[in-house]
């Protein structure tokens, strides 16, 4: 996992003075040079690789052997782009991603927004590891939502697709309320601080011409902070990759695929391998 790309700052916050952050237990300094180049380096002065993408600065403590994953929708000019800042959570970075992939908690944690009792059933959907792209995908996901997005008025059944292109990033596609034929894109880019602490940078690319930017940011911040107290109380803190400790149900198929994919690649930072 050392050789993956990770988000470490929002590009809009990057200034001439270096700011220190933590990436996988090690301090990293980030800044923008006089000539406009974004930089990342260790306190000892070792330069780290950088990529500017999706309104964030990405770096790696190791040597990535391929570019950062592509989000083609980021190039569609009529989308609204909404970076939402950072939420720090005392949980494994892998648990933050797994929670993002879960639908079953909507009625209980995001009550009357992304779900509501008694509409709690998660219908059967398809989860797979796409070998060609080496990504986890879940498709044909459907769920009843009282207020699916800031732009939604009234309850709708929302279609979802989920994609895990990197061990600590996930992108979801959901029905766009103003444009039912299109998908809104919502992503979380997770910066692993330690194995049990992470900074989550939510980001959205939406079709919404009317809602003010501040409302879009507030909506996503509201959703994410509703998750935070749940994430911080999950036991065990590290994500178990071996069966035995937690019993999955049919609704957890994406999580099972994600855990298997992590294990098959040895992506174990924030994970535990033997049931405690």
């Amino acid at each position, binding site marked *: 996992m050392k050789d993956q790309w990770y988000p470490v700052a*929002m590009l*809009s*916050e990057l200034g001439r003075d270096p700011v220190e952050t933590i990436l996988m237990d090690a301090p990293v300094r980030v800044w923008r040079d006089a000539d406009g180049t974004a930089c990342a380096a260790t306190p000892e002065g070792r330069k780290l690789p950088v990529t500017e993408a999706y309104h964030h600065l990405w770096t790696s403590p190791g040597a990535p052997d391929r570019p950062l994953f592509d989000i083609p929708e980021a190039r569609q000019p009529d989308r609204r782009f909404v*970076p*939402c*800042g*950072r*939420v*720090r959570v*005392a949980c494994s970075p892998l648990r933050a991603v797994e929670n993002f992939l879960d639908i079953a908690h909507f009625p209980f944690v995001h*009550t009357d927004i992304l779900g509501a009792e008694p509409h709690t059933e998660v219908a059967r959907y398809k989860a797979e590891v796409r070998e060609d792209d080496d990504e986890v995908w879940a498709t044909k996901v459907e769920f009843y939502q009282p207020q699916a997005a800031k732009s939604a008025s009234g309850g709708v059944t929302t279609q979802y697709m989920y994609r895990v292109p990197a061990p600590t990033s996930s992108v979801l596609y959901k029905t766009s309320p103003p444009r039912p034929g299109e998908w809104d894109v919502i992503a979380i880019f997770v910066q692993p601080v330690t194995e049990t602490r992470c*900074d989550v940078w939510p980001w959205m690319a939406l079709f919404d011409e009317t809602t*003010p*930017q*501040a*409302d879009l*940011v*507030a*909506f996503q*911040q*509201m*959703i*994410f*902070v*509703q998750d*935070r*107290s749940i994430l911080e109380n999950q036991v065990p803190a590290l994500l178990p990759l071996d069966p035995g400790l937690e019993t999955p149900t049919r609704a957890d198929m994406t999580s099972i695929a994600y855990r298997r994919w992590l294990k098959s690649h040895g992506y174990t930072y924030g994970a535990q391998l033997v049931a405690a």
Partner: protein
Amino acid sequence: MILHDWVLSPNCYKVRLMAALSGQDLTLRAVNLYPEREHLSDEYLALNPAGTLPILEDGDLVLGESAAILAWLGEGWLGQGKAEAARVQAWLSFAERLNATAGRARNIDMLGVPGSLSEAQKGGRACLRELELALSDRRMEGGTFLVGDGPTIADIACFPHVMLAPDGGLTLAPYPSIRLWTRAVRALPGFVEMPGIHRLHELSPEPEMETELR
């Protein structure tokens, strides 16, 4: 009435809660306080030179302090008589101390605001202990809320910072009187939630109880 609002701010939530409990309508204007720092724009500094949220606009009246807004919205929630009104004021000041300690710990721990988390938590813990003592004394006298027989703006001012203390790494487990008081506030008719402050799911009947009651 227009409330310039940020969804994650405990001081903004106080105003939303007071309005909901007293049946007053607010028009919410979301301000991109984080990450864009929109509350420090020229437009907002003209409205509130302190550079803080919430800001309430009611016709010509513009209020930029949550305690002042609670006083404006909270007719009938200000305490009965001189002594109670004075005690309510004391709790409004206490709420500021909670904001500067437990609230600060939350900003450091959740949003990465610079500062000493352990210092902020230490101050927050001292405030929570003080509140626990006061509320347990109130319970011995037969009281449920901070001042007098019913809820006042004192309860509304302190409640959000207390409920959100766990966001800053402060547990409420050692404080039974505080926990009972937060239940009493959450049970008030018209109560609304915010991220980190849940409604009282635990007071709704369990499914089998519902059947028995029928």
